[in-house]
Each structure stands twice: as C-alpha cells, then as structure tokens.
C-alpha cells in the first residue's frame, strides 16, 4: 500500500486545520477548520485500516464514530455562533475579549 502518501495528506490537512483555527477571525471559518482536522484524522484511520487489514475493520468503525461526533460538534458550534450573533450582531472571534485570557 502507499501508506505514507495518505499520512502526508492527512498531516497537511490537520496542520491546515490548526492554522485555520488559530488565525481565522470568522467563527464559521473556525468551525470549518475543526471539520478539516477531524477529516484528517479520518483519513489516517482509514489509511491505517487499509494498510493493516485488521480482521474487524476497527479503523473504519472508529472513523464512523468520528464522523458522527464531528457532526454533533459542529451542530453545537453553530448553535453557539448563532447565539452570539443574536447578542452581538457579529461573528468575529476577535471581538470576544470581555474577559482577559
């Protein structure tokens, strides 16, 4: 199998996601970055699964759970962003500095 290529792709996606999470100002873009990171993990899992050929396809099962949790998490995230948008009329993450970090 051509495992390294998949791992490199996943690592690149993950780094892109971390970058987006830390740099992007728009809250919706931050959510997209999160999705990117979780997708990278899924690529890893499925690639390892394909390379290892384990008996019960655990890697793919794991990926299915990650997909579900990712959907739930983005649901929560969008709900939070909507709630904030109603109060502030803005989805700019930088404006949330009421409390010092």
């Amino acid at each position, binding site marked *: 199998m051509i495992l390294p290529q998949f791992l490199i792709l996943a690592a690149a996606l*993950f780094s892109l*996601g*971390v970058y987006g*999470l830390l740099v992007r100002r728009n*809250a919706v873009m*931050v959510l997209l970055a*999160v999705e990117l*990171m*979780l997708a*990278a*993990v899924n690529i*890893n*899992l499925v690639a*390892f699964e394909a390379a*290892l050929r*384990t008996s019960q396809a*655990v*890697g793919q*099962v*794991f990926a299915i*759970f*990650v997909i579900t*949790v990712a959907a*739930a*998490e983005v649901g*929560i*995230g969008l*709900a*939070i*962003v909507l*709630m*904030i948008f109603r*109060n*502030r009329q803005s989805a700019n*993450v930088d404006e*949330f500095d*009421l*409390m*010092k*970090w």
Partner: protein
Amino acid sequence: MQIDWLAIAPEIVVAVTILGVLAADLVLPRPLKYWTATLAVVGLTLAVVPLILMAASSVETRSLFEGSYVVDDFALVLKGLFLIAGYLVVLMSVSYIESDRYYQGEYYLLLLSSVLGSLVIASARDLIVLFIGVELTTGPLFMLAGWRKGDIRSNEASLKFFILGVLSTAILLWGMAMLYGVSGEVRFDQIRSALADPSPAAQPLVGLAILFVLVGFAFKVSAVPFHFWAPDTYEGAPTPVTAYLSVSSKAAGFVALFVTVYVALRDRVDIWGPGLWALAALSMTIGNLAALRQSNIVRLLAYSSIAQAGFMLVPFAAASVAGEQLAEGLAATVVYLVIYALMNLGAFAVVIQGARRTGTGDIDGWAGLGRIDPRLGVLAAVFFFSLAGIPPLAGWFAKFVMFRAAIAAGSAAATSLAVIAAINAVIALYYYARVAKVVWFDEAPAGAEPATEPPAASLALTLGIAAVATVVVGVFPAVFAVFGEATRVLLASG
C-alpha cells in the same frame, strides 16, 4: 449475545432518565417543569443501586464486549464519585435555574448526558469507547457554559470553551489514530501487548502518538500550559456549571488519561512519565501564582482548581518518573481526586450562596460575611481551609496521601516533585486563608444586617452533604482509605 446487564445498569438507568427528562420537558406545562429536576435526582439516586449491588457481590471484574468495557473496583469507585458529584450539582442548580428565566428541562438533560459520558469513561478500555465517553462528557458542557443566553460573558465562556475543546478533541483523536496505526488495535490490552515490542521504525511514531494523547487530555483537565480557557470559561459560565466543570469534567478527563496511560501504555512509562511530571509541576506553580492575584472568587477557584489538578497528578507522576509503584501512585491520586471533588463542590455551593447574600463575586465584597450569616461563614472557612489542606479537614488527608506516595516512589525526580508540591502547598495556604480572613475579620459594610432567610433547601442539602463528608473524612480517614485500597489492589491485578 451474552451481556452482563448488572454491569451496565447504572448507564442504562441514567440513559433512561435522560429520555424521561426530555419526555417530561416535552409534555409538562410551564409551571410543572420543576418535575424535570426531581426526575433527574431520582434517576441519579437509582443509578447508585446497581453500583452497591456490584460492590457487594463476589464478582470482582466484569468484562463486557470482549474486554472493551470493564467494570472493576476502580470503575466502581469513580462511577460512585461521578454520580454523587452529579447529584450534588443538580441539587445546587435547582434554585439557581429557577431564578433564571430560561427553560429547565434542557439543563438537566445536558447535565445528565455529561454524567453518562463520565460513567462510560470510567469503564472504557478501548479507544473508541473512551473517545465516545470523552465527547459525551464535554459536548453538553459547551452548551451548559453558555446557558445564560442573553449574557455576553456566558456566550464568550461557551465559545472559548468550545474552540479549545474541539481543538483538544482533534489533537487527542490524532494521537489515538496514531496509536491505532502503530499497534493495529483499539483495545487497551491488545495495544499494550502490541507496543511491548515495536519495530525500531515505529518508535518515533509511538512517541508522537503518546505526546498527542497527553496534550489532548491535558487540555481537557486544564493542566498548565493548556489551561488558558479555564478561568474565562469558569467565570462566564453559570456557577453550578462551573462547579461541575471544575469537579466532574476534570475528574473524567483525569480518569480517561489514567486509564489510557496505565492500561494501554504502561510499558512506555519512559515516554509519558516525564510529561506528567512537567504537567504536575507547572500546574501547581503557575496555578498558585495566578490565584494569588485574583480578586474575583470564581476566578480564584478556577486557578485554585488548576493548582489542585497539579497536586492530584503528583503521586502518579512521581511514581511514573521513578518507574515503580505505579499502582500505589495511582491509588493516591484517585483518593486525592475524590476528596477534592467533595470539598470543591462544597466551596462552589458556598460561592453561590455567598454571591446571593452579598450580591457580588468580588472577594473584598464579602467582608464581614461571617457576621452577617455565621453559618455560611463557618462553611466557607471549612471548605477553603480544607482545600488548603489544614487538619482535621479532608483536604489534609488528601495532601498526606499525596506526599506519602510521592516520597515512597523514591527517585530524585520524584522527591523534587514532592518538594515543589510542599512549597506550593504553603503558597496556596495564603490565598485560601485570605478568603476566610475577609469573611471573618474584615468589617462588614455599613448598613448590612444579619441574614434571616435561610438558603434554598436544595442548596442547604448540598452544603450539608459536602460539609459532613469533608469533616468525617478528615477525622476518620480510615473510612476512606478502604476505597483507595480497593482501587490499588484491583488495578494491580488488571
């Protein structure tokens, strides 16, 4: 399919309660919504029954789903802790939520979901199950932190918690995927045997996987240097939720971390041992130094809980850098965890009632509270001195167990960690005692009258349970040591 139903009965009871609370919220008219809280309390109480049955039975370890889900004494003790902590937080929340104008059903639904997640964590011996448990614990908390929808601070708390929470989830998952990649297994016992003798080419990957897992969990337990979200989230979230965050969710994160490193990665203690050492030392020191400068009581408790997390890690970290007596270290850590949970919940109940009496969260605003409301003043002194570790309160026993285990571990690194912990214990005394000093020795503001109305019954119950537990454990630690011993013996065999 053969399933030991008794072993998963607590989870089933809580899950059914969740569905029941949702259904009750669906059909009950507005004035009867308080029944959802009653349902939650009943459900959590019922869930304790199978735990007691299992503790009394002669079966020591119940293994389900081919070993992915294990109920041993370690799991039983922690499940008991999670249920009791959930119970106390629900009691604390009742009067708090009633005074708000938002719907109630969802609140208990989310809180119970989080409790269910932590119950799963205590038994998870499989990467997938553990991941589901961790997500079920933290997911609802993102929403609970933002419970006061109209309050911008609460919004901000929720957003910061969410962003760092999902970042930590992604990092943790990356580590888990790597672990799966190098071992080809997701079950902890199989991972352990696969990692016992990895090929040289896989060595760096193993190190990387452990690093990612460690960092992911460090975020979840808000250990320094991954703690930045905690003070802001604690300050902005509703106070009962903060209590839950600082106790149950932190404990769940710790349990997940311990189970992973102890069961699956025990043979690679050379990699994660120093990591735990650094986390413990940094958390204690930075948490304490930051707590010294806080003027808001909730922020003070936030940094104090970061420092306490460091103390908690000390016995296990000391044992792991020494490379021996891991089981003893873990047992001491679990004892500390349980005692911390009880006294910290009590401290937060005091904060809720104190904020209601004085109308402020500023420590200086609490001046003379001891004269306005003597009972609350006494309780404040009890919980804060217990957190500081002063005998004969429970916190003293926790600190004693911690130092004993750290010194027993023996090596130079372990002893130096104990020395750092000792210095920090002295620093911590200063800011805990300051609260007691303000409450008892500062002059009350002019015009303050002695309080007449008692606290809400549910909150008084919380305060009572936590106070009795704190004092009894402190005076008769032998009662409590039994739990620690049970943990130690069974984990050693597992």
